[in-house]
């Protein structure tokens, strides 16, 4: 027990940041008009909103805080209130039953703010498109700045998306 307490997680398990720097990140960054860093500096506070997901996306988002992905080393952190947030990370096809909650969460987030829609459902409703209970993608309710693809997106893809949001498009050489 003493060993478990004192040794902790050895060796360091965190993935190299260099592994995340690739074409996928560039492609995501290119979707943006402007990176968040230009407006806010190095730190971004993220409020996650499940607007109707199956919880698959949440499982992978939770993994971002673990030792392997450790998103706080990039200046990214999850916050408990939209009033503290710069970014809403929204998942799910937006259900009609969650519409008002999403709108109110967005309204409670101070500007400047960004909305990242994570997962195939958040883009266009995915398999739930056309249901009487579903509005479709997140963009049907609040303006979306960036989509992160996947069903669900892997933690690595999520991390790349959030880094792309900070960086924004690279100036053309």
């Amino acid at each position, binding site marked *: 027990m003493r060993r478990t307490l004192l040794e902790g997680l050895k060796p360091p398990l965190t993935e190299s940041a260099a592994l995340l720097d690739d074409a996928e990140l560039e492609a995501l960054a290119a979707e943006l008009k402007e990176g968040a860093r230009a407006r806010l500096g190095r730190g971004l506070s993220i409020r996650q909103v499940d607007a109707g997901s199956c919880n698959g996306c949440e499982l*992978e988002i939770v993994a971002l805080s673990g030792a392997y992905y450790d998103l706080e080393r990039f200046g990214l952190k*999850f916050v408990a209130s939209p009033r503290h947030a710069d970014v809403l990370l929204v998942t799910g096809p937006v259900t009609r039953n969650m519409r008002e909650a999403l709108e109110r969460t967005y309204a409670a987030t101070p500007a400047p703010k960004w909305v990242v829609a994570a997962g195939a459902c958040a883009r266009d409703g995915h398999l739930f498109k056309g249901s009487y209970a579903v509005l479709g993608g997140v963009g049907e309710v609040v303006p979306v700045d960036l989509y992160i693809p996947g069903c669900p997106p892997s933690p690595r893809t999520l991390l790349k998306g959030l880094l792309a949001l900070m960086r924004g498009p690279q100036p053309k050489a």
Partner: protein
Amino acid sequence: MESMNATSEDWKAATRRLAAGEARLVDLWGDDGAVCLALASPEIRVLRLACPDGAFPSLAAVHAPAIRLERALADLHGLRPDGAQDARPWLDHGRWGIEAPLGRAGPRATPQPPYPFRTADGPALHLISAGPVHAGTIEPGHFRFHASGETIVRLEARLGYTHKGVEGLMRGAAIETGARLVGRVSGDSTVAYAFAYARAIEAALGLEPPARAVWLRALAAEIERIANHVGDFGPICNDGGFALMHAHTGVWRERTLRVAEAAFGHRLMMDAIVPGGVAVDLAADAAQAIRAHVTALRPAIKRLTELYDKTASLLDRTVGAGTLSRELVERWGAGGYVGRASGRDFDARRDHPYPPYDSLRFEVPVRDKGDVDARVWMRILEIEQSLSLVEQLLDGLPEGPTRAEIAPAAGEGFALIEGFRGDVFVHVRLGPDGRLVCVRPRDPSWLQWPLLEAAIEGNIVADFPLCNKSFNGAYSGVDL
């Protein structure tokens, strides 16, 4: 497995047997102007009662575990439970623009009045409401606490926020589409749902999947159980103020998901199980990687269990918190760790055996304290069993094909599969063209959520996250 067309008398007799505890409620749902009741005694059978005048004798009136199921079916199908005491809507929040979407599906006549929450009267009571958007990364739900100082007098949950209309989307869909949809009823149980759906379709069509596929399904199911149990163990401790456990279990969950991806091509193993077999065979070298993972995880869990069991400040939070009585879990037929932590000795893998579990050795651990600590121990003990099952599955994995052809035809079938949360029930009805007429997936949490409201009474508000996480009820799974 045809359901039995019941008369009103048959129906009432069945409700009396449920109320008397002679049979166990498995599910209650609507299907094309009829209500269907699955009950076990111990074999499962399905009664179907046509409701030509739009009403049926309420089951909830005599058997409380049916209350939410009945309210949900009334919302979706517009069928009226005669004699029901709680006639409030459940899934219908008045926001769909239509009423009875799976029934007459007509425009809503009058706006829905504000939801009449339960109240509690007494001196110095105050009300705390939380959600649907919570402080952490969890699914949306609304909770109302009446508290006297710090002590919870009454908790009432309101769910339905993630209702996506899954049963509606299933109608008329192809079998393959149904498999993808059912795998997204609750993402954390995607394997269990796909497994239950595949077996239900195969039962309807009289189809036997190849042996290798059957074993691979169980392998995926046990890896899913391990990933979720490991993933619950740490966060429960975290909600008790012990973050270190979360850090450790987070690493082991991640490693488990990476092994799942190496084996089945997807971290959560979505769409791996399909009617007729499995969509992916085990990747080369995957067996080796899974064995290495099992060998490393077993001693790690042992060390973390020791840490849990010797950390007095953590046990001070978990022991005696959120105690749920045996009487309630038996009456509700609550499955999974919630039932077993309170002494209900039930596991679908053993009690409604399906291959390959009928040829595997495993124990069903049971505890009797019914508190958060007992639910933590259920996870620990079940991880141990699943690790042994994974080894047995790799040792005995048959060679051969992994998928049988499906010849679409009319039919009806159901299956009960033990997911990590408890028994997942899926009932399917296929039309003559082989398309889905009605698919009903029932999450184990239907029969667990109401018990959280009982378990929390008399606990302090600050222990709610801890108790809630120890239940880990599905939101999307019950909102459908």
